[in-house]
């Protein structure tokens, strides 16, 4: 019986941040032999050298077409590899596809040993997506605040309003037009840019 830490897991990802998150999740669950690689032109040779039992790769990675070659009984690889699809568990297939995870395993590994690894990858991909969404939202918020600051500055300079009055003017117009304050701020900036 192969112990957890004896699985050789390879994470292939063009996104080093996501690969790191997946790797950390696996290591924390007791899988210590985890390697990760990005895009490389000699993928087949590198995989041969690393001899993984399981490969985790994002579903849309173009390297997957190269991996498919290894399904062929060929001189390229000593151990046959197959895509992991747990047919007894339709919801898991759905979760994996929507999270964008695919997994390849060497022949002969038991499904119940692989499933927790794939589940871990799915949850880590989802965590990464969540983080990315939060970061994008934070970035968008910051940009909105910057727009409002600039519009306030323009109103103070051009209309001689105080900072509070400038903000109040933006807010009043936003409410009246049923738009967001930063949208009004953008209109103010555009309008004044046009004049110069």
């Amino acid at each position, binding site marked *: 019986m192969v112990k957890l830490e004896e699985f050789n897991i390879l994470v292939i990802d063009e996104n080093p941040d996501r690969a790191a998150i997946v790797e950390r999740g696996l290591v924390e669950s007791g899988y210590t032999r985890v390697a990760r690689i990005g895009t490389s032109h000699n993928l087949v040779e590198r995989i041969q050298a690393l001899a993984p039992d399981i490969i985790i790769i994002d579903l849309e990675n173009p390297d997957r077409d190269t991996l498919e070659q290894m399904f062929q009984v060929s001189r390229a690889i000593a151990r046959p590899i197959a895509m992991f699809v747990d047919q007894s568990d339709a919801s898991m*297939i759905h979760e994996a596809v929507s999270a964008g995870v695919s997994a390849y395993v060497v022949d002969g590994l038991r499904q119940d040993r692989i499933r927790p690894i794939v589940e871990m990858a799915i949850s880590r991909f989802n965590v990464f997506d969540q983080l990315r969404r939060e970061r994008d939202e934070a970035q968008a918020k910051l940009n909105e605040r910057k727009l409002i600051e600039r519009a306030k500055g323009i109103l103070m300079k051009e209309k001689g309003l105080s900072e509070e009055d400038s903000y109040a003017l933006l807010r009043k117009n936003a409410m009246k037009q049923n738009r967001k304050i930063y949208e009004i701020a953008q209109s103010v900036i555009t309008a004044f840019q046009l004049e110069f």
Partner: protein
Amino acid sequence: MANKVRLGFVPLVDCAIPVVARAMGFAQQENIDLELVREMSWAAIRDKLSFGMFEAAHLLAGIPIAARLGLGGLPVQNIVVPMALGRGGNAITVSTQLYQRMLEADPNAMLGPRGRSARALKKVIDEDKAEGRPILSFATVFPFSSHNYELRYWMAAAGIDPDMDVNIGVIAPPRMFDSLRNGWVDGYCVGEPWNQRAVFHGDGVIVALKDDIWSRSPEKVLGLREDWAQSNPELVSALVRALVRAAEWADQPGNRVELAHILSEEANVGAPFEVLKASLSGKPVLRPGEPPIDLPDRHVFYRYTATFPWLSQGRWIGEQMKRWRQIPQDTDLKAVIPDVFRPDLYRTAVAGLDVLVPQDDWRIEGAADAPDRSLVGMDQFLDDTIFKAEF
């Protein structure tokens, strides 16, 4: 309410049919809201179709056959093919260095018919063997691609063993061009615009076109999940009609410049307009800096029954799988192919329209004097093979 159909495609010239179906309103006329999803890998498209993220897909003709046979490490997936998506525009491109070596090794072979240019490659390979140099590397786009079978056919006809004399790997189409530029491969077989692009950049030379190998070799097809097709027969017919109409539009010489504009958009193929135009106008450039050659049939989307899912073409793909030992020699292709290629669905969809359909679902392929020559166009293998597999 329009019927929503999600269709995955790979950025290649032959995604033109679904792209045109949406852009020119043919899908809308059939009350279909066609959502196109651009994918960078064949494996991703196959999986998203198999597991329900797409209803339809632009697929290599070999993928649904491989899926039905449970090849490629996946459990059996039942995908059906109600139509073909044109004849594609494949070519074999080699690096300029390899081209020079081929030219020096056998100038006569390089002047003769392009289908036979591999004779020069054979001499280069023999030289390398004698000198103990490492073997050359070639790439195709997928193990079950017509590109793989065309490249192997071209090589084998010149006495090259594609499994021993060269290294044939797989690279997704959008990455091909960089692989050649960076010297990771010495040549490849891929669809346009990835050949023409290498020539325009001065990194590659086209040594054989699909037409030089076998003009009727099947290329991309429309793939549908069988269970979805069974529960939505009217929608399948409407989708096929929309795509056949789009193919007819894309085939008109007068529409090719507009087609090149549509395809050059980033959401579609996203390649330079000039590169797409050269290929689509039937004026491909084979060698950097040289004038284009005249080849009106370089891209065929509709004429010559290019959208009909011929059983005999599907069978040819299956026989290539046998030839290169991807499937057991006793695989019953006569039984399998008609489950996958479904000319009956095509006939139902276009019934009553002015679409030319052949009388039979299969034909003897490669016969120079075939009576249906005006219907199917040029039909010749580079080695004059007659491919006869009855159904």
